[in-house]
């Protein structure tokens, strides 16, 4: 509805005056002979010599306003009326309409409270005044089925129906929505929004700003420049779906930098350290920025682009200043690059880039189904080869391992899924992909079980950490987790009691075996 308000006022503007014209219309209707040719008045300035017509609401709303004087039959169009009059066999004189002098007419709105009631703000078009009257003061009889928007004028409604439901809303983080309300709610809580500074923005968000006339809501320069905050800890934000691939496939160095900065920024929201070691480790190995990008790339639905992403990430890393560049300077760089844009309403480079380059994700969901992400991880893992170093991963693993305890005992119980390495590794990924929840659960599970079984604090043993640093504490979480996924037939219950050492070694060996695959 609001859009039409805009257009209607635009239409109205074309025929009304914003300031008084030279006093011509103030005194009331005046009839004068005007030249025959139709000249359009400038918007906002009705012809001072025009005749001001004030029609009543009934007349305005009447559908048949051309009435035959002979038989009182009503017609919607003047031509139809003329055609009808011919049938009455009028004498020549009466055949002529008394409209030899065509006066310019302007119309005022009968509604007293309306701006257009004033002759100085009369509308020049009868259809215009009719539509205006219906829209502003009339009853809204036409309703959109999809979004329940109501319209008084049928043509407005028809025009709306053409576009309703087809419009898709895209958040700066890249997620696509088909529903406006979920888009808005997402937008409010989106991490991309959180990264903005208090600067004004130029509009790029589709609907939000189009509705605004009075308030200068300018679109977000998503992040673009000012990220004074230190680069994100090496944690991916599972909530951010950013199709980094499309962005980074750009060849423009500075824009890529801007975009990467954007992506990094989008990921800044610190998650509790996720045990998604792989991506985090990646981040540590490469520049932080790329790391951020890759992690967010992980969450993308679109597996086919993943390899492209990473390729381009590595390509773009080369564009970046060397990784020794401190975060602060990097931000400054970006600031300098985009600093000029700060106070202008010029389209932000990153934003325009992002909107043009973003692929459309097909689902508005923030959460890709696990199996997709799983494949994702597999692909991702393979392409990670050059960048990952086992040392970095192990270091990460060591860090992670410190948080989970009770590893040895659970191993002893044989509750670790050591029986089948293949599913175990994928389960690692699955677990990794599920992000927070699984880790949390894993930790809690391990705590609970250990508390019960051990009746005392167990000695954490770093050597029992598996490759991903998830520790066997998480492995018990696995089984439960796997059950949740419903995909695993892991026979945990059937595992026999194993000696402490054997269990431990076995797992370690397995992890070592897993290494090549991961890399």
């Amino acid at each position: 509805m609001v859009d039409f308000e805009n257009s209607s006022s635009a239409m109205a503007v074309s025929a009304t005056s914003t300031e008084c014209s030279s006093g011509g219309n103030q005194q009331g209707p005046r009839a004068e002979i005007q030249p025959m040719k139709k000249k359009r008045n400038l918007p906002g300035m009705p012809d001072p010599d025009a005749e001001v017509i004030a029609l009543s609401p009934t007349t305005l709303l009447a559908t048949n306003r051309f009435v035959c004087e002979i038989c009182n039959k009503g017609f919607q169009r003047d031509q139809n009326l003329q055609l009808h009059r011919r049938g009455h066999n009028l004498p020549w004189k009466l055949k002529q309409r008394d409209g030899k002098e065509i006066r310019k007419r302007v119309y005022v709105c009968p509604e007293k409270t309306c701006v257009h009631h004033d002759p100085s703000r009369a509308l020049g078009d009868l259809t215009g005044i009719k539509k205006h009257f219906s829209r502003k003061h009339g009853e809204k009889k036409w309703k959109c089925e999809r979004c329940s928007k109501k319209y008084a004028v049928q043509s407005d409604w028809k025009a709306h129906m053409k576009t309703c439901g087809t419009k898709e809303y895209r958040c700066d983080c890249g997620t696509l929505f088909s529903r406006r309300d979920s888009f808005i709610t997402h937008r409010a809580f989106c991490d991309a929004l959180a990264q903005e500074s208090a600067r004004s923005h130029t509009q790029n968000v589709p609907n939000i700003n189009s509705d605004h006339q009075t308030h200068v809501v300018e679109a977000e320069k998503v992040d673009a420049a000012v990220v004074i905050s230190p680069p994100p800890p090496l944690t991916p934000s599972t909530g951010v779906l950013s199709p980094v691939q499309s962005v980074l496939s750009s060849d423009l160095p500075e824009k890529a930098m801007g975009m990467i900065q954007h992506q990094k920024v989008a990921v800044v929201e610190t998650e509790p350290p996720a045990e998604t070691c792989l991506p985090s480790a990646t981040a540590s190995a490469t520049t932080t920025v790329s790391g951020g990008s890759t992690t967010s790339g992980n969450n993308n639905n679109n597996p086919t682009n993943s390899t492209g992403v990473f390729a381009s990430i590595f390509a773009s890393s080369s564009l970046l200043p060397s990784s020794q560049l401190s975060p602060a300077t990097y931000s400054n760089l970006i600031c300098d690059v985009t600093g000029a844009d700060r106070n202008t309403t010029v389209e932000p480079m990153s934003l325009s880039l992002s909107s043009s380059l973003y692929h459309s994700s097909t689902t508005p969901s923030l959460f890709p189904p696990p199996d997709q992400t799983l494949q994702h991880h597999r692909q991702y893992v393979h392409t990670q080869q050059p960048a990952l170093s086992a040392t970095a991963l192990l270091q990460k693993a060591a860090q992670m391992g410190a948080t989970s305890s009770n590893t040895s005992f659970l191993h002893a119980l044989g509750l670790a899924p050591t029986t089948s390495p293949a599913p175990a590794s994928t389960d690692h990924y699955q677990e990794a992909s599920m992000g927070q929840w699984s880790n949390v659960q894993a930790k809690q599970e391990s705590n609970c079980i250990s508390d019960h079984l051990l009746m005392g604090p167990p000695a954490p043993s770093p050597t029992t950490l598996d490759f991903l640093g998830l520790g066997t504490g998480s492995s018990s979480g696995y089984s439960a987790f796997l059950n949740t996924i419903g995909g695993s037939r892991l026979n945990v219950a059937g595992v026999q009691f194993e000696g402490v050492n054997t269990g431990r070694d076995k797992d370690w060996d397995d992890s070592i075996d897993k290494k090549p695959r991961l890399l």
Partner: protein
Amino acid sequence: MDTMFTLNQCHHQSFNSTITTSGSSSRSSTEHHTTHHHHQPPQQCFFMEEDNLSSSSSIHPYYSPNQFPSHDNNNFHHHLISTSPPPQLKSHAFSQDVVREFSDSLSPNCWSRELLSEAARALADNNSSRLQQLMWMLNELSSPYGEIDSKLSFYFLQALFARMTESGNSTYRTLSSASAKTCTFESTRNLLLKFQEVSPWTTFGHVASNSAIMDAFNGETKLHIVDFSNTYCTQWPNLLEAIATRTDDTPHLRLTVVTTTGSNGTETVMQEIGNRMEKFARLMGVPFKFHVVHHSGDLSYFNLNQLDTKTDECIAINFNGTLRSVSYDRRDYLLSMFRNINPKVLTIVEEEADMDVGTDGVKFLKGFEECLRWFRVYFEALDDSFPKTSNERLMLEREAGRAVMDVVGRRPECSVERRETAERWWRRMRGSGFDGVVISEEGCDDVRALLRRYKEGWSVLQPEMGAGIFLMRRDTPVVWASAWKPV
């Protein structure tokens, strides 16, 4: 412990065939619930993984000496991974009766209701041996990862057990604090947004309330919304957008959110939410002020001065899922308390159930049945809306499990999840000086348009009597949304 029943939807045959007590059949079953089950040490039969059991480790539900022979550590291990049934388990012997009783009669689709009702009856009758048997059986069949019946059985069994041992309060606190520990802004946001994306359960109330609030605020310039809700401000972005777009002169909006959980987790979460709201309002171009008040304990003891209301502002009060946290005898008082602020509109969104379990006896049974019914409806709705393997659904189910624990396991005066029917709320509101405001046609249209965006099965019902509208899930009213003004 041997599984007498392997109730699995795929294996109906096995249901009857495994009834005989087998000697030492090795456990090779890999069905979810049993597998998972054996994961947990006995003490965990009735607790969920998230428990911080250090605080409750003193409870040994099944293996307390007077009921079963005591187990030492070896047997615990044995129980966990053993492939042979622990012979000491006397349950084998006496559970025979119960097994026989139910072996032919349990229906595959709602066996949990039957068993749980029987268990509740046994509890109410103080029939401890029967209760033990039933609980043992339920224990075998329950799992938070199984079918709906298994899940319901899990949570209700846990609650029944807590009721039996009078440990409801501590168990509930344990469960709550365990979940609060892992609660972050992101996790909360993601959970809620996902839930709202797949199900209209919460968005229904939001749209209806926002519509009523917008109608009430029409033409006002200084607005103040006092928000008591459990949806972490996910309601407000759409209202902000409506304020920004539908009115010519954008009014000034103050939002005061009152949290009732009182746990530490919510402070940081609310702070972050506040930041986002402020940013979003700035984006929308709405002059906006955000304020959080943390209140612990019963809402009826809330100090209204903390709201800092101004004389020139137009107040709307929003209760979304929080009125149920007030104890029964304080509800009317609370409502009249808010009547005295003289808000322009007061909106209520509540779930349609009558969870008055009383203290014991017939009232308990009736209330228990209603709880069973209600949570089944909820779990089914979740099951419908979410994909099969969904973290978010699991989190929501756990939250519901805590609610079950609260209603069934705790004493009435401490309970915070006792829902009441719309009819009763309506009476309370009328009695406290409020009159129902009809939700406008546009609002109803908005709600209907909202429901169209979800999977089918949802509809709106406008009752002939009373106020408000109901969200219906397959002809069962589930959520009630209403608007009120002081008379």
